[in-house]
């Protein structure tokens, strides 16, 4: 990924990066201006779209190969021959040092016709859409209305969303791969300081002003399958805003109380619908073994069933188990189940082992991308075929599995932190309670994911405790509370990919 955003030549003027949105990933694509034309590097495209780029020095051009089909570019000509047909480009390709730059329109005009899935370039929102992705258009407008400030979102096509409140801002998060967002030119108002798109690209943040007190949201149908969401912001002190129910259908989630801190357990409506619980190991793979013969695979299954019951009864969301028997489940199938059932969270349960008996306590892990960010194979892997839940398979193009979890590192870290926070006073925690490591089962999960090591089977006290009903009940409840806690922050914007933490342990929170 870093190769895709690396800039080598100072000559062109760097522009804001685009985001390449596919069903499974969101990746940055560096851009630069050459004159008035917005250009991208062919090397970056080669890595992102599995292209073979070959320079023809004699002819002064470049041949781009994709699955036996070719696009031919000639230096100085604003034309491309794609699959034998000529298409025009807004600017000729340019050689900058050792790399070739092409106009961003190369993607839809030249590469699109020979590419397997649809390629769409949305210049205004700096998006490249690959295949069938959910990218609704969201036009945001803002207007004062009396003592209130009204923000309207015209959403097309209709897309579900959640609104959550955080100190200093409201977040409108859409169930989409990205947003084709049109944001208003805007000067700060007493109730509303700014409107911007979060770095995750799926959330529009309203930074509220010091006088903001509460908000009210309502939804109105629009023509052509779109909807209009209206968010009215009211000032804090004197008068409570009148209901802004302009004939719209039912208002969505009740606004939180005026103090900007929502209560801990207040659910963010619709944030969690499906959770996949993974009982580690199984079948011939017994996992770790305690001194008295306790097997990790048995403990994880018992706890998974218990946790499923606890989540279903307390959160009312769907819970799927990666296994509900003593059976071997390939490691890829575990994340695949979560991906294919569009799970919102993935929690893998394990029991630990150490070469030293004294090591004890629970640890919460989330993924780290230790794997060479500059590993050449990372960007040149062939398409992968994944087993699909319920039979068949599906192809994830161009992108190794790690990338799936990389998108969620920030949220996974929050989940790990929330779980640890709820566990720490109820179960024995290891001195390193939250750790980050390149764990195989988490790598492919395309949602926030953690792996919980409930204790050390190699420690006699832990082993004895782990098998007890009391411990498993307490731990299950702590995990549910951790998930609830996480749900409160579920709409926080994600950190940009480039800041993905490095290898090793990056404690989110450590006890002294």
């Amino acid at each position, binding site marked *: 990924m870093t190769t895709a955003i690396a800039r080598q030549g100072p000559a062109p003027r760097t522009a804001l990066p685009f985001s390449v949105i596919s069903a499974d990933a969101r990746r940055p694509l560096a851009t630069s201006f050459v004159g008035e034309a917005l250009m991208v590097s062919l090397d970056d495209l080669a890595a992102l779209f599995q292209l073979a780029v070959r320079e023809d020095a004699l002819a002064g051009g470049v041949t781009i190969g994709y699955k036996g089909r070719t696009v031919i570019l000639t230096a100085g000509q604003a034309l491309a021959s794609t699959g034998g047909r000529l298409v025009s480009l807004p600017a000729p390709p340019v050689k900058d040092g050792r790399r070739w730059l092409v106009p961003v329109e190369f993607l839809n005009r030249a590469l699109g016709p020979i590419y397997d899935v649809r390629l769409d370039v949305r210049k205004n929102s700096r998006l490249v859409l690959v295949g069938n992705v959910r990218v609704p258009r969201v036009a945001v407008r803002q207007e004062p209305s009396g003592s209130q400030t009204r923000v309207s979102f015209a959403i097309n096509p209709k897309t579900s969303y959640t609104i959550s409140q955080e100190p200093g801002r409201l977040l409108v998060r859409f169930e989409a791969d990205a947003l084709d967002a049109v944001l208003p030119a805007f000067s700060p108002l007493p109730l509303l300081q700014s409107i911007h798109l979060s770095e995750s690209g799926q959330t529009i943040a309203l930074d509220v002003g010091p006088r903001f007190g509460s908000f009210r949201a309502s939804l109105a149908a629009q023509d052509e399958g779109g909807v209009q969401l209206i968010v009215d912001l009211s000032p804090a002190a004197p008068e409570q805003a009148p209901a802004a129910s302009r004939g719209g259908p039912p208002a969505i989630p009740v606004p939180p109380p005026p103090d900007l801190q929502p209560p801990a357990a207040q659910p963010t409506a619709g944030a969690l619908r499906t959770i996949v619980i993974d009982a580690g190991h199984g079948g011939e793979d017994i996992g770790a073994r305690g001194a008295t013969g306790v097997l990790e695979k048995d403990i994880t299954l018992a706890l998974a069933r218990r946790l499923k019951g606890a989540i279903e009864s307390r959160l009312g969301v769907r819970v799927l188990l990666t296994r509900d028997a003593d059976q071997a489940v390939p490691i890829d199938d575990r994340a695949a189940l979560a991906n294919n059932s569009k799970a919102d969270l993935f929690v893998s349960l394990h029991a630990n082992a150490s*070469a030293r008996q004294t090591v004890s306590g629970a640890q919460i892990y989330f993924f780290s991308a230790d794997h060479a960010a500059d590993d050449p194979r990372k960007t040149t892997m062939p398409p992968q075929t994944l087993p699909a839940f319920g039979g068949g398979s599906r192809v994830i193009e161009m992108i190794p599995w790690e990338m799936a979890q990389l998108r969620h590192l920030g949220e996974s870290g929050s989940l790990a932190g929330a779980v640890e926070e709820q566990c720490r006073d109820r179960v024995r925690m290891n001195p390193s309670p939250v750790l980050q490591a390149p764990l195989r089962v988490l790598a492919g999960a395309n949602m926030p994911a953690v792996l919980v090591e409930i204790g050390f089977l190699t420690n006699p006290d832990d082993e004895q405790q782990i098998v007890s009903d009391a411990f498993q009940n307490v731990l299950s409840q702590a995990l549910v509370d951790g998930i609830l806690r996480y749900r409160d922050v579920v709409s926080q914007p994600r950190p940009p990919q480039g800041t993905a933490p490095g290898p090793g342990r990056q404690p989110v929170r450590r006890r002294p």
Partner: protein
Amino acid sequence: MTRGRRIALVALTLLLGTAFAVAFVVLPRWLSEPPATPSRAEPAAPPATPKIKARIFHVSEDGQHLVAIEREIPFGEGTLAQARRLVEAQLERPAPPLVSAIPEGTKLRAVHLLDTGELFVDLSREASAAHPGGTFDEILTVYSIVNAVTENLPAIRSVQILVDGREVDTLAGHVDLRRPLHRGASWILEPTPRDRANQD
């Protein structure tokens, strides 16, 4: 006459004997005296195999980290040979109270080095089959090898562990080994004076 002949015979025998002795014993010994030095060079004390100092990683006393132990290991000519010596040293069982994070019986089968600075460390099947499991233990297993190589040999940027000549997903179901791993400094605890005292 007979008597005179007998004396002559004895005299001749003595003379021949003396001549023989001079020709085959004294003379060669005398002649060989000057060049004696080179031929006397029977293998002198075998040259001491050169050693280098290297940091080898074992499980810390509290079990929460890896600690580096400075050890002398055989010198290897070139990065690849040195990498082999390093991994071999890393696989040796340490003296108590040190504990290795690597399953007992694990042997080094081969090392391969790519131009790109990736080292492939091919371990015997015990690395996986005899692994006690557990995420934490597996992390320490993997990073004791990765760190030993990458810390001591800057030319090696990343390490991929193979088992029985094949790429593996994991050793025991946790740490992703499908790609080379970089040095994991965060798993290392810098040695305490007590650890230093334990060094050999």
